[in-house]
């Protein structure tokens, strides 16, 4: 073990300074590749609740419960909806209301649901997304 470590140290020394420069380039590349995907990632519990059809997208731009929620699912939905509300509030362009911005975002979110995920149709019923187009509010773009 210690022999191996000593060997590594020697090699590290030999690589200087090109080794360090190359490592820095590699590290930068890795960070550049990892950071956006890390930001894009949903919480695994949220992803699982979506996939299981426990939560779904509503026409108002918020998450809802497609089936009676467990305490854990309710906590996930509450947390995300609070964050969504904050995002709609800070992001609503001039001349539009938070509700309008949330509604148009909801149109997009329902359109983006994957097959098997739930969404709420304009009649208030929960539907499971299939291969076809989802049933959306007639005002959706």
């Amino acid at each position: 073990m210690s022999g191996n470590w000593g060997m590594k140290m020697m090699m590290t020394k030999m690589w200087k300074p090109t080794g360090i420069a190359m490592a820095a380039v590699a590290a930068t590349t890795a960070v550049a590749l990892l950071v956006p995907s890390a930001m894009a990632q949903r919480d695994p519990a949220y992803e699982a609740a979506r996939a299981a059809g426990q939560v779904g997208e509503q026409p108002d731009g918020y998450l809802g419960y497609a089936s009676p929620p467990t305490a854990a699912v309710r906590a996930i939905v509450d947390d995300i909806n609070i964050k969504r509300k904050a995002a709609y509030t800070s992001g609503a362009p001039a001349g539009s209301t938070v509700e309008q911005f949330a509604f148009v975002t909801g149109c997009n979110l329902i359109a983006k649901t994957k097959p098997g995920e739930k969404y709420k149709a304009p009649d208030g019923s929960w539907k499971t997304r299939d291969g076809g187009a989802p049933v959306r509010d007639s005002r959706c773009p």
Partner: protein
Amino acid sequence: MIGRGLAVTIGAMALGGCVQIDTPDKPIEINLNINIKQEIVYRLDGDAKKLIEQNSSIF
């Protein structure tokens, strides 16, 4: 003339008395209580897409 008019009236009443109620073949739409013009929808669409992209962990 009066007789004919009466017959028509009685006929109309008979028809009127027979109100047919069909169940709607389309689900009744409960519109979201939101007032939004189509031009605003299209104007907000790009911003909405950007918001989703930039905050993908909450969408």
